[in-house]
């Protein structure tokens, strides 16, 4: 273990080597691919465990001239160790799950190569001790996410979703780049220790600008309003990928980034307020959108957005260890839910809730796993979600009551959508056409592991707080009771809503049905973004291409060429072949030259 503690870079290099190996030798690897791919995450777990009380650090000069240099380094502190554990455990579960889920896919080896590359990038992101390394991992996980969302590239929806996810997060990344430039100018370094240690010496405006820029990056990555639109579409990727990247790890990187650069946010109330407002809006808004979804993965996608909103709200009130606690428990139960839904999709051949029903009798293990995950998501004791969500709500209520109330409302909705989805999928009468079967052991085993985690991680709160060097929060029983009561009430509402296999929803009065549809479409925000940003940019691009580049600039160049040719033709007209007129011109020329010479000499 001590070796792992002193050599944490294995968490990056091992999976990179594995990815290269799988990419190059894919033909010979075949069915062994997942087992090889397990190496990276296992090392991540090892290093994470060994470094909970702090681990090694180091740095090299990456690029520079003389004294001015960008350095690239790593530092495994408690925060990084916790993240490594999250990444490692979820990755292992996902890889094992994928053995069965991806069986027979023609991109089998490619899939595991990409997953391996992703774990390398994610590990690099969390152990980076400077913004360059962090950004490197940050963008590479985005690239892996792009390639994995578009894994089934022939489906237009998947190809489109992959592009959209990369583009939207890149907007945030560009802001992050500017934030790095601001910090570079102010401090002359990108090393986190130096920047964060010297925050006090920086002008408040610089700190705020930098913090807001970094926050924008986090908002893009963590799919917070208004950059949340990519995550629901990202569900086009294979479901285990959704569990790993779009629920447990990459989307939580935004929360990690804010936690990592916390001193900046501590010194900037403005940036914290923005985080609080965006987080609260997202938590509540996404929870409402999750309610009417008919696609089981879309329910989970909006649920993820909503839960990340909870974490951002906690960050906004300064409770970053609490946000991180929720990140950890959320990673467990949301990965559990996603993998359960993957099992459901694998077993029933559909992801439409309306075509499911009564899966509990055919898929008992999956159903149990899902229900445990659902309870944790709703925050029902004694699951892990109960503890972390209670801390989030309590800390937000204390600092900003309006936001706390909004989060409580979101809790009600959380109970409602998870109960609705549960009843539609696992209870009532079977509505699917296909023969349903329970999944094989490689798929159910990860479910069990994650279920245990989702049940027990609540007790890990003090341990996480200690690793982060923060005080662990005591359970606030009053708020907990209220929150659980509200969530239970919401769950009952959602349960009733899902009666008769969803027919009750279809029998709504027309006005209400229209609103239901609008909410299901995410309040039409996607269309709005297309009309406000995507279309005008495309139109502007075509305008610049046609009117400015081809017509004006190249038109001028070509016009100049034509003008020269015309002038040539004009002058050629004087050359009429008559020697005497040439001589006349010559004579005139001589006289003019003589006159000029005489005039000059005079």
């Amino acid at each position: 273990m001590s070796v792992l503690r002193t050599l944490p870079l294995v968490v990056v290099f091992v999976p990179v080597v594995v990815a290269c190996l799988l990419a190059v030798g894919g033909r010979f690897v075949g069915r062994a691919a997942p087992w090889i791919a397990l190496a990276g995450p296992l090392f991540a777990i090892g290093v994470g465990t060994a470094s909970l009380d702090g681990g090694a650090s180091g740095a090299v000069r990456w690029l520079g001239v003389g004294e001015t240099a960008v350095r690239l380094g790593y530092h495994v502190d408690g925060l990084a160790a916790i993240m490594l554990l999250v990444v490692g455990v979820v990755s292992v579960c996902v890889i094992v799950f994928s053995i069965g889920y991806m069986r027979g896919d023609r991109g089998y080896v490619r899939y595991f190569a990409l997953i391996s590359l992703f774990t390398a990038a994610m590990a690099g992101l969390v152990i980076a001790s400077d913004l360059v390394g962090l950004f490197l991992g940050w963008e590479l996980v985005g690239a892996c996410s792009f390639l994995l969302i578009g894994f089934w590239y022939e489906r237009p929806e998947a190809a489109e979703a992959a592009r959209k996810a990369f583009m939207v997060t890149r907007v945030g990344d560009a802001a992050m780049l500017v934030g790095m430039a601001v910090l570079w100018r102010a401090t002359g370094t990108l090393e986190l220790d130096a920047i964060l240690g010297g925050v006090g010496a920086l002008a408040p405006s610089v700190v705020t600008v930098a913090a807001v820029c970094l926050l924008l990056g986090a908002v893009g990555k963590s799919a917070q309003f208004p950059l949340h639109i990519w995550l629901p579409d990202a569900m086009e990727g294979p479901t285990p990928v959704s569990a790993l990247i779009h629920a447990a790890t990459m989307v939580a990187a935004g929360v990690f980034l804010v936690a990592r650069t916390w001193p900046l946010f501590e010194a900037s109330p403005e940036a914290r307020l923005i985080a609080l407002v965006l987080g609260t809006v997202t938590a509540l808004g996404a929870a409402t959108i999750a309610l009417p979804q008919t696609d089981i993965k879309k329910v989970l996608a909006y649920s993820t957005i909503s839960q990340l909103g909870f974490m951002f709200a906690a960050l906004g009130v300064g409770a970053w260890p609490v946000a991180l606690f929720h990140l950890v428990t959320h990673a467990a139960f949301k990965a559990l839910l996603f993998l359960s839904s993957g099992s459901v999709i694998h077993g029933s051949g559909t992801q439409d809730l309306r075509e499911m029903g009564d899966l509990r009798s055919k898929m008992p293990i999956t159903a149990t796993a899902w229900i445990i995950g659902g309870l944790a998501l709703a925050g029902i004791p004694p699951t892990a979600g109960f503890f972390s969500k209670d801390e989030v709500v309590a800390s937000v209520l204390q600092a900003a009551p309006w936001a706390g109330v909004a989060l409580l409302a979101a809790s009600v909705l959380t109970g409602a959508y998870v109960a609705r989805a549960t009843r539609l999928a696992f209870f009532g009468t079977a509505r699917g056409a296909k023969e349903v079967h329970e999944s094989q052991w490689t798929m159910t085993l990860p479910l069990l592991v994650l279920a245990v985690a989702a049940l027990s991680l609540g007790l890990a709160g003090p341990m996480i707080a200690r690793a982060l060097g923060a005080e662990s929060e005591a359970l606030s029983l009053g708020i907990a009771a209220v929150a659980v009561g509200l969530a239970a009430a919401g769950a009952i509402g959602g349960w009733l809503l899902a009666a008769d296999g969803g027919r009750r929803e279809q029998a709504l009065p027309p006005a209400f049905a229209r609103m239901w549809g609008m909410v299901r479409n995410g309040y039409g925000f996607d269309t709005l973004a297309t009309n406000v940003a995507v279309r005008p940019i495309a139109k502007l691009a075509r305008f610049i291409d046609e009117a400015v580049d081809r017509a004006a600039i190249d038109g001028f160049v070509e016009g100049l060429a034509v003008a020269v040719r015309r002038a040539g033709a004009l002058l050629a007209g004087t050359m009429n072949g008559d020697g005497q007129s040439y001589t006349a011109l010559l004579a005139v020329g001589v006289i003019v030259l003589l006159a000029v010479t005489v005039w000059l000499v005079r």
Partner: protein
Amino acid sequence: MTSLVLSCTLIGIGLYGVLTRRDLVAVLASIEVMLGGAQVLLASYAAGVSVPAVGEGITVVVLATGAAEAAIGLALLVALVRRNKTRTDQIEEVRG
């Protein structure tokens, strides 16, 4: 001064002939008149400066050139006559 006026007059007459006459023989003759004008000027210049033989020398060179020019010009003329082109407006090979 007189020689200058004479020279200019000769060159002017010659130029007029070169530009207006359509007959190639006449054009050649006019060129000779222009050359004569130039020689007059050179000779008078030679008389006016102390350094001897410069103007005279050049005049002799111009005379020789004129003779050569006349010979080549006439040879070209003969060639053109063989192609039945003795008028300047019939020659269009130098068109741009």
